[in-house]
């Protein structure tokens, strides 16, 4: 008996045998369409004179007018500048910390001590931004905060930190490092754990000191991980932790604190200029997309493994 497989036959066979996979997949796909792809359709209001009453489809097209408005607006330009500056500073100060921590962890010989310290430094990652902002506000409070108390001990004047534009970025970046440096070190610790132990053993036999081994073995071995993480960070350069900024900034510090996303939040959700804010969001998203794609291409070239 000759058996024939036509295309229709095969699809029918496939569905008969595998229909359950599609049932399992459906909720995920529906969710992505409803909650992530439908808003992409709504992005068209960036090119429209959007009004709530006429809706997305009913509002008239106006081309690039919102983008003209944005780039003519001092506030938006300031937000753009702040975004770049804050993310650069975060990269500069925040990126090396986890690597240094991981290297330090690696040199701790006592396992109990190591575990305890790790437990402590991972913890802030699990604390919400609201709580951290609460701690920051309390600690930097002009009258009761511990920072001003200590300044007072040393005879300095009290400073109302959170109203001073020049203090906003150090506080924001510092609290970010406090929250994430420990947890981010996990990636590098994993990379260090992957280094072949016989490299260290032969170095010990050759009489290398731990300091030398760190520089000659550990750091070169984890360099690929460092570079990949750096590329990822550059890809996400525009992703400033704006929730934290919303909680910490005030009109007095806008000049150094206001970033694109906080600008969008205020213009869109507080003032109600949805179309203009959507245009700013679209600009942000497109730049971010280009950055991520570039980062991925570079990483592919460098490591021959794509990031996703």
């Amino acid at each position, binding site marked *: *008996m*000759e*058996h024939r*497989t036509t295309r229709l036959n095969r699809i029918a*066979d496939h569905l008969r*045998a595998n229909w359950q996979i599609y049932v399992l997949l459906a909720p995920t796909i529906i969710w992505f369409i409803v909650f992530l792809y439908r808003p992409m359709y709504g992005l068209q209001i960036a090119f429209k004179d959007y009004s709530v009453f006429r809706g997305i489809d009913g509002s008239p097209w106006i081309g690039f007018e919102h983008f003209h408005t944005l780039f003519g607006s001092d506030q938006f330009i300031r937000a753009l500048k702040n975004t770049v500056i804050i993310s650069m500073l975060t990269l500069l100060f925040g990126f090396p910390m986890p690597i240094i921590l991981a290297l330090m962890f690696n040199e701790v010989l006592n396992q109990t001590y190591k575990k305890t310290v790790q437990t402590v430094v991972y913890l802030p990652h699990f604390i919400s931004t609201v709580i951290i902002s609460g701690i920051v506000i309390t600690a930097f409070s002009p009258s009761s905060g511990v920072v001003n108390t200590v300044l007072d001990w040393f005879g300095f004047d009290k400073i109302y930190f959170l109203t001073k534009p020049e203090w906003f970025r150090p506080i924001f970046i510092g609290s970010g490092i406090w929250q994430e440096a420990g947890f981010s070190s996990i990636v590098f610790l994993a990379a260090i754990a992957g280094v072949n132990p016989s490299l260290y053993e032969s170095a010990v036999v050759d009489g290398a000191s731990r300091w030398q081994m760190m520089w000659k073995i550990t750091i070169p071995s984890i360099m690929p991980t460092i570079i990949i993480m750096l590329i990822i960070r550059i890809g996400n350069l525009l992703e400033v932790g704006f929730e934290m900024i919303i909680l910490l900034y005030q009109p007095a510090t806008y000049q150094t604190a206001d970033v694109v996303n906080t600008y969008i939040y205020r213009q869109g959700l507080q003032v109600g200029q949805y179309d203009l804010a959507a245009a700013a969001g679209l600009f942000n998203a497109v730049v971010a997309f280009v950055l991520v794609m570039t980062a991925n291409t570079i990483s592919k070239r460098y490591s021959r493994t794509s990031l996703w």
Partner: protein
Amino acid sequence: MSSVVLEKIVKKYGAFEVVHGIDLEIAAKEFVVLVGPSGCGKSTTLRMIAGLEEISGGTLTIGDRVMNRVAPKDRDVAMVFQNYALYPHLSVSENIAFGLRIRKVKKEQIAESVADVAGILGLTDYLDRRPADLSGGQRQRVAMGRAIVRHPEVFLFDEPLSNLDAKLRTQMRAEIKRLHKRLGVTSVYVTHDQVEAMTLADRIVVMCDGRIEQIGTPMDLFNNPINTFVAGFIGSPPMNQIDAKLTYDDKGPLADIDGVAVRLPALPELKHNEGRKIVVGMRPEHMSITPIDDASELPVTLDLIETLGSEALLHTMVAGKPFVAKAETNGKALALEDVTSLRIAAKEIKVFDGETGMAFGHPGTA
């Protein structure tokens, strides 16, 4: 028990064909071993029989049913996987019972079947353990138990012993053979290890590059390899294969190996082929270091001796190529300088075509 019949079975991945139209008939209760180097299509063939790979062309019949489009679970076959695929979260008895549970067999019946199988495989004391707490051999047994418990028409084995160490492998090999004798279930067994194939099989199927090279009983393949590939694959150490030229004297055909004449068997096919390129096949077992009747002598330079106990492997060079011989030691250590030549009787020599690699005088081709 059912027969398994493959007719012109083809497997393609897209446009890439990996199995090129295999014909194979496996009789009921037979133990057939598919053997070949990795990538030869033996596993793919087994997985097509199991229903884990779609059949791209040809017909698969198990018993009297065409199985091409039947789901694996409805083929009444059971498979033992290379990595056993034991569920780490289930105990031994739950692992064995898994298939019966899925099929909603009654509880009492499951308990009875599991107890039976555990008895057969000597697992009764381990039923409550997790796979992680078992030795490699025990895990192997659980994997077989899971196959046996369903009383399938056909057993499929996908390199089931390759994760075991050498000693356990020998032991489990014997156990599989015993089990087959006892249960008499049609079995298809895939391995790349020719020793396993030789010891287990009723018939061996040697595969290479998606084609069947030769089918036969183990002794058949050993004595009458159809080509140089099978000759090199079956037997350990493998048959020595030396390039030579065909010549004649008044007694019959000779192989000219770099000026040394070696008497060949007087096969009719070797007539009238003066100067033809041939490959001379000589099994290490057939080489002798002591004079024997009616033998050609092959001068060798001895390179190294591996003593195995009752016998030794002599690594030598013949015509600039490595050449291995096996010799009895009679309990005495051989000395290198003792051996300057090897002898072999003409009837033990295999002759292959230098171009195609096919055997001259093979019963299947004559």
